[in-house]
C-alpha cells in the first residue's frame, strides 16, 4: 500500500491597511480567498458530501487566520468580490461583441465569483469554520506554523524568540479552531537541531522536513525518507518527497507549465483600455490583475492562444493519471528495494492550487477521487501515520530548509542580510524589557505586548523572501522598518518609564493580531 500525505500550507503575511481606502497588497488575501481557499473548501466539502473518505492536511498560518477572521478585511473582501462580479457582468457582455473566444470563460469566472461570495456569506464570512467542520469529521488535519512565519534557523541564537513564535502560533490555532494542533509546518521547511525539542515540549507531534534532510542527516537512515523520522526529542518529521512534488512544483516541466493551461500573467487589467478596466484596477490608473485571464500558457511568445477550458480539463485528467501512475510505479520500485508501504509526503504551498495554477483545484479533486479508487493508494495524514505505524527512522537531522541550496541563502543574502542586525537588537532589547519590567499589567503590560507583536511581525520570513525574489521590495522594507520603528517607540518610552498612550491605542488598532500576546514569552529565565 502506498500511503500519501497530501499537506498544503496556506500562508500570507499580515497585511491590513485600513488607513487607506484600498491597499494593493491586501489583494494577496482577496485573490487567494477567491481563487484558492474558497474553491478548495468547496471541493473538499463536495467530496465529503459524496461520502468519499479522503484524508488531507492543511496548515493555516496564524497571520492568515488572523486576517481571515478580521471583520474589516472580510468587509473589504466583499467589496473586492462585488467589483469582480461587476467586471464579470461587463465581461460577459463585452465578449459577446469582441474576443468572443473568451465568452465561456467570462461566464465561468462570473459564476465562480458569485458562488464563492455566496459560500463566504454562508460561512458567516469565516471560511475557517468550513475547514474546522471537515476536521471534526476527520477528513482534514489542521496544523499551524510559527506566529508570523519566521524562518526559524536564523533565530536559533535567540531561544526566547523561537519559543515566542512557536507558542504564539499554537495559541492562535487553538483560539481559532478550538483544538490544539498536533502538526507544525516548519516555515520554509527550516529546521535546526534543537527545534524539535521546542516543538515537542509544547505538545507538537510532528513537522514536515526538507527532502534532503534524510540523506544529509548525521545518522544512517534505513528507510530513506519513506517512513517517518523520529527526531532526538521524540518529535516526528515527515520528509518531503521531491521526486513526486517536483512533477507539480517544477517551474520548467511541472504540470502547471502545460501549454494548454491558463496563463497566469495575461490579464485584462494589463491590456484592455484604461477607461474600461479603470474602476477595477488600482487608483489612480495603476494596472493590476483583475482575475479575468483568457489565454493559455502557450509558450514564451507574444502570440498566446485563447484558453480552451475543456481541453485544459482533459489535460488535467491526464496529469492526474500520470501522477497516480508515478506514485504506484515508485511504490513498486521501492518494494524491490525492501521498503514496503512507503509514505509519500507531498508538501505544497496552498496558493499554487487555483490561484497560480488555475487547474490546480481540479487536479486535487481528481487526484483524491482517482486515488481513492486505487486499491494500492491510501490517503493519510501524518498524525494517522504516526498512530498507525511502528516503523520509523531515528535520525539526528542537520540544519536544512527547502530554500535555495537547501539552507538559509534565500533569507540571508546580499539583499536582505542587513535586516538581522536590527531584528537581533530588537530581540535583545525585548529580553531586556522582560527583565526590567516583569509582571506588568494594565497599560505597561499592553505596551510591552505591543512591542512583542511588532518584533514578531518584523521576524516574518516574507520580508527577506520578497527582498530576495525582488518582487515587492519597497513594501517589504517599509513594513520591516515600520515594525522595528514601532518596537523602538516602546523601548525608548519604557527606558524613560513612560507609556505613550495615544501611540499604543493607534498601534493596537492598526495591527489587531495575537490578542492573547504575552510579552513574558521573551523572558530568558522562563525558557
Amino acid at each position, binding site marked *: 500500500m502506498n500511503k500519501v500525505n497530501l499537506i498544503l500550507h496556506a500562508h500570507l503575511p499580515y497585511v491590513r491597511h485600513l488607513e487607506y481606502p484600498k491597499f*494593493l*497588497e491586501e489583494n*494577496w488575501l482577496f*485573490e487567494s480567498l477567491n481563487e484558492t481557499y474558497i474553491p478548495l473548501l468547496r471541493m473538499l466539502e463536495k467530496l465529503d458530501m459524496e461520502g468519499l473518505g479522503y484524508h488531507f492536511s492543511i496548515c493555516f498560518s496564524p497571520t492568515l487566520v488572523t486576517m481571515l477572521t478580521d471583520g474589516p478585511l472580510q468587509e473589504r473582501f466583499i467589496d473586492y468580490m462585488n467589483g469582480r462580479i461587476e467586471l464579470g457582468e461587463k465581461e460577459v457582455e463585452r465578449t459577446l461583441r469582441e474576443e468572443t473566444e473568451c465568452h465561456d470563460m467570462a461566464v465561468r469566472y462570473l459564476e465562480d465569483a458569485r458562488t464563492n461570495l455566496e459560500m463566504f456569506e454562508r460561512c458567516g464570512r469565516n471560511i475557517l469554520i468550513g475547514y474546522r467542520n471537515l476536521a471534526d469529521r476527520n477528513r482534514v488535519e489542521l496544523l499551524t506554523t510559527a506566529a508570523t512565519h519566521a524562518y526559524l534557523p536564523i533565530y536559533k*541564537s535567540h531561544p526566547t524568540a523561537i519559543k515566542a513564535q512557536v507558542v504564539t502560533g499554537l495559541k492562535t490555532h487553538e483560539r481559532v479552531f478550538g483544538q490544539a494542533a498536533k502538526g507544525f509546518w516548519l516555515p520554509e521547511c527550516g529546521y535546526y537541531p534543537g527545534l524539535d525539542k521546542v516543538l515537542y515540549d509544547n505538545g507538537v507531534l510532528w513537522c514536515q522536513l526538507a*527532502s*534532503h534532510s*534524510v*540523506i544529509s*542527516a*548525521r*545518522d*544512517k*537512515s534505513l*528507510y*530513506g525518507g519513506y517512513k517517518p523520522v523520529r527526531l532526538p526529542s521524540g518529535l516526528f518529521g515527515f*520528509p518531503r*518527497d*521531491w*521526486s513526486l512534488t*517536483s512533477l507539480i512544483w517544477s*517551474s520548467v*516541466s511541472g504540470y502547471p507549465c502545460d501549454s494548454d493551461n491558463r*496563463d497566469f*500573467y*495575461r490579464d485584462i487589467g494589463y*491590456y484592455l483600455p484604461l477607461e474600461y478596466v479603470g474602476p477595477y484596477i488600482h487608483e489612480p490608473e*495603476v494596472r493590476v*490583475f483583475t482575475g479575468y485571464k483568457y489565454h493559455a500558457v502557450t*509558450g514564451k*511568445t*507574444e502570440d*498566446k492562444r485563447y484558453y480552451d477550458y475543456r481541453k485544459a480539463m482533459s489535460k488535467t485528467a491526464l496529469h492526474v493519471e500520470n501522477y497516480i501512475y508515478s506514485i504506484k510505479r*515508485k511504490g513498486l520500485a*521501492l518494494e524491490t*528495494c525492501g*521498503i514496503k508501504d512507503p509514505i509519500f509526503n507531498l508538501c505544497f504551498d496552498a496558493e499554487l492550487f487555483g490561484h497560480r*495554477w488555475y487547474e490546480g483545484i481540479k487536479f486535487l479533486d481528481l487526484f483524491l477521487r482517482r486515488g481513492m479508487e486505487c486499491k494500492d493508494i491510501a490517503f493519510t495524514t501524518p498524525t494517522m501515520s504516526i498512530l498507525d505505524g511502528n516503523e520509523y527512522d531515528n535520525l539526528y537531522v*542537520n*540544519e536544512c530548509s527547502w530554500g535555495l*541550496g*537547501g*539552507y*538559509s541563502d534565500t533569507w540571508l543574502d546580499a539583499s536582505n*542580510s542587513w535586516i*538581522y*542586525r536590527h531584528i537581533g537588537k530588537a530581540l535583545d532589547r525585548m529580553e531586556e524589557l522582560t527583565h526590567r519590567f516583569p509582571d506588568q499589567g494594565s497599560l505597561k503590560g499592553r505596551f510591552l505586548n505591543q512591542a512583542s507583536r511588532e518584533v514578531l511581525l518584523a521576524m516574518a520570513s516574507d520580508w527577506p523572501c520578497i527582498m530576495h*525574489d*525582488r*518582487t*515587492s*521590495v519597497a*513594501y517589504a522594507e517599509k513594513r520591516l*522598518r*515600520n515594525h*522595528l*520603528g*514601532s518596537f*523602538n*517607540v516602546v523601548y525608548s518610552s519604557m527606558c524613560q518609564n513612560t507609556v505613550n498612550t495615544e501611540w499604543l491605542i493607534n498601534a493596537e488598532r492598526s495591527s489587531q493580531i495575537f490578542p492573547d500576546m504575552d510579552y513574558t514569552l521573551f523572558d530568558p529565565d522562563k525558557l
Partner: protein
Amino acid sequence: MILVNIESLSLSELRNIAEQEGISDSDVMDRDELVEALQEKYEEEDDAPDSDTNTRYLSGITDFRGMGNYVEGLPGVVDLPDDYADTEIHLVLRNCLWAYCFWTFSQKDADEIADTGRSVYLSVTIMADGKTEHFEVPAALGDNEWNLSIPYGNGWAEVSLVSGKGDERRVHAVSKRIQLIDPYWLRHEDEMKASDLLYRVYLSLLKTKEGAVVENQVVEDIVELFRKEDIR
C-alpha cells in the same frame, strides 16, 4: 524581479509598463525595443530567477510596475540606526560551507582603535571532529559584515571581534557558537558500495523526472563520492 516573463507580454502590455516606467518614446517602439528598454531599465541579471508560478506575492508586483513609492507615508516608518551603541559580533549559518558574520563597534571602541592605530581582525575558531583550528581574518574598521568559510564536521565554529597591534590582541566580543553540518555519508564513504540499494532509495526521494537531483551541496558531495567508489 519578474523580468523573464516580460518576453511573453503583448505589445500593448509592454507599452503600458514602459509608459509607467517613464521610458520615453515607448509609444513608437516596436516589441523588441520595448523588451530591451525594460530589461535595461531593470538591469536584468543573467542569473535572475525564471518567472515561476510558484513565486509568491505576484499580485503585488509594485516595484516591477513602478509602484515602489506607493507605500510612502505609512505611519510609523522611521529610519533605522546605522549602528547600535554596543560592541558585539554575531555568527549565522548561511549554508553547509559558509557562515555569515556581522558586528558593531561602539563609538568609544571605534574611536580608541582609530586613535591607537590598531587593526581589526576576526578571530575564527573551528572545532571539528576533535581538532581545533584558529585563524585570523583582517577587516577594516569600517567593515561590519563578512562571510566565513566553514568545514563539514562534528563540531562548531565561533568568531571573536579582535583589535591588535603587532602581536598584542584585545578581544572585544565573541559570537555564540554555530553547529557545523555533519552528514553521515560524507564520513562513511567505505559503506557506500555496500549500501548501494539504500543509496538508490535515498536518491529516489530527490530526483526529478529529468534525472536532476535536488540542489544541495551535501547531496552533490555524496553523489560525487559514490561515483568515485563506483569507479574503484
